[in-house]
C-alpha cells in the first residue's frame, strides 16, 4: 500500500467521430500542448494524469480511441472497464453531432450501466465555422441526462474543467461508505483489472 502514489484510479474513455479532436483534448489535458498536425489515432492509446480532488489523489487513466469505424470492434472492448466516458463532437461538423445518438447506443451496449457520461462540443474557438449551436448541444445533453461542456483544445477552454467535472461525478457516485478509505479503494481496483482478464 505504501507504494501507491494515489488514492483512487479512474478509468476514462474518449469516444466520438474521426477528427473531432479527441486526441487533442487528451494531449491538452495531459501535456498542456496543442498540435495542429492532423494525425489519426491507430486503434487505442492512453495517457495518465494524477489530479487532486476533494483531498484525494486520483490517478486518471484516459483511453483515447480511434474514431475510424474499422477499429470499433477493438475500441468497444475498452468500454466495459471505463468509469467515465467523454463523448466528443465537433461544433463545426454537423455529422459528428448527428452521430451522437449512435455513440450513446454504443455506450448502452458495451459500457457498464453506472458509467458517468459527458458530452463535449469541441473546437468552440472556431466561431466562424460553427454549425452546431451551444443550445443544440445543451438540449441533447438534457434529453439524455448527461453533462455537457463546450471545449477548445486549441484555446484551452474548459479542458481541465471537463476532466475534473467527470472525475468529481465519478467520485460522488462511488459507494458512500467512504468513512473507511481503504474500503473504497478495493472495488475500483477490481474493476480496473477486469477488462484485461475478461477479454484475452
Amino acid at each position, binding site marked *: 500500500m505504501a507504494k501507491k502514489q494515489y488514492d483512487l484510479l479512474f478509468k476514462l474513455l474518449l469516444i466520438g*467521430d*474521426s*477528427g473531432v479532436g479527441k486526441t487533442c483534448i487528451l494531449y491538452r489535458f495531459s501535456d498542456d500542448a496543442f498540435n495542429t498536425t*492532423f*494525425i*489519426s*489515432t*491507430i*486503434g*487505442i492509446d492512453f495517457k495518465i494524469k494524477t489530479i487532486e480532488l476533494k483531498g484525494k489523489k486520483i490517478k486518471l487513466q484516459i483511453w483515447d480511441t480511434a*474514431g*475510424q*469505424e*474499422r*477499429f470499433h*470492434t*477493438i475500441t468497444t*472492448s475498452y468500454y466495459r472497464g471505463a468509469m467515465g466516458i467523454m463523448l466528443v463532437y465537433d461544433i463545426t*461538423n454537423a*455529422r*459528428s453531432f*448527428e*452521430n451522437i445518438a*449512435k455513440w450513446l447506443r454504443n455506450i448502452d451496449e458495451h459500457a457498464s450501466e453506472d458509467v458517468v457520461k459527458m458530452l463535449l462540443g469541441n473546437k468552440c474557438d472556431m466561431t466562424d465555422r460553427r454549425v452546431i449551436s451551444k443550445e443544440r448541444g445543451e438540449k441533447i445533453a438534457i434529453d439524455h441526462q448527461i453533462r455537457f461542456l463546450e471545449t477548445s483544445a486549441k484555446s484551452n477552454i474548459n479542458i481541465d474543467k471537463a476532466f475534473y467535472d467527470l472525475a468529481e461525478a465519478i467520485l460522488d457516485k462511488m459507494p458512500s461508505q467512504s468513512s473507511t478509505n481503504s474500503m473504497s479503494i478495493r472495488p475500483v481496483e477490481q474493476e480496473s483489472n477486469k*477488462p*484485461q482478464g475478461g*477479454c*484475452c
Partner: protein
Amino acid sequence: MYCNIRFHRHCQSRAPMPCVPKVPMPKTPSKQKCPLAQYCPETHPFIPPLIIHCIVALERDRLNSEGIYRLTSNAEIVGKLYQEFLTQRKTPILSSVETENITGCIKKFLKELRDSLIPSTSCDEFVRAIESNDDQEIINCVFELAAPNRDTLAYIILHLQKVSQHSEANKMHIENLATVLAPTIIEYPAVVTLENVEKLNRNQVMILQRLLKLPTEFWKSFLDSNMDAEFSNTRSILYETQTIGSTPILSSLTPTKPSKRGRRSIISNILDLQSDYSTSKTSVNSSPITPIIQPLSNALKGMRRISFKAAI
C-alpha cells in the same frame, strides 16, 4: 468491350461518366458476402464499377476537402448509396453526395467483401516483406495477388497518391491515409486479442504506407496492361501474345493501331477522365516509357525480378 453510346458533341457534358461496364449484382445464397471478383467486370482492368464511380467523383472536385477519408460518414446514407450501386440499373448521381459519404461508400464496399482487398492469407507475406525493408519483396507480394485484387488495389493506391498530393489542403498525407484506411484494406491474419492488437494495427498501417510509397508508374502499369492472362478470356490471351510481345505497351495505347481501340476505351476512359480534372500534369499518353511497363504476356514470371527502383 465498350458501351457504344453515341451522343452529340455538345451533349457530351451530360453523358454518364465515367463509362464503365456494368456488372450484374452477384447472386449469393442468403446473406453471404461475395468475393471481389464477382463485383468486377469480365474484362481488364478488373475494378468494381462502384469503386471507379466513387473515385472519379472524388477526383473531380473534392481532393482538397479537409480530412477526406478520415471523417466519419452517415451510416444510413452510405448504406442506401451502397445498395443503390449494387442493385439499381442506373448509377447513383454523386455530385450532391457529401464527400465523407462517398469515401464511406468505398470503405463499406471494401468492408463487405468476403475477404479484404489484401486478403488475410497474404497478410503474413506482406508483413515479412515490410520487415525485409526491400521494395522488391513488396512488389513480389503485389504480383502474387489475384488480378481483381491487384487491379483494384492499384487503382485505389493511384487515387490515394493523388489525394496525398493535396495534403496541404486536405491534411491527409500518406501516413494519415495509411492509418485511416489500413484496417479497411488489410484483414487481420490472426485472432485479435488485446495483446496483439497494437502490433497488428501497426503492421497494417506499415504495409499500406509502403504500398503508397511505391512509384506511381508501378501502379499504373497494372491498369495500362493486363498482366494476368489466365484471368481474362482466351481472346485476350491471343491478343496479348500477338500484339504486345516485347514492344512497349505504350505503343498499344496510341490511336494509330485501331485494333486496340476497344481495349483502350475503358482504361483510358478511367484514367483520362481523371487526368482531365486532376492537377497532375502527367496523363497516360505523356507518361515516360519506363522499363516497368514494357514486358508483358509470356514474360509474366520474368516481371517479378525486374527492379522497379530505377523508375522512381
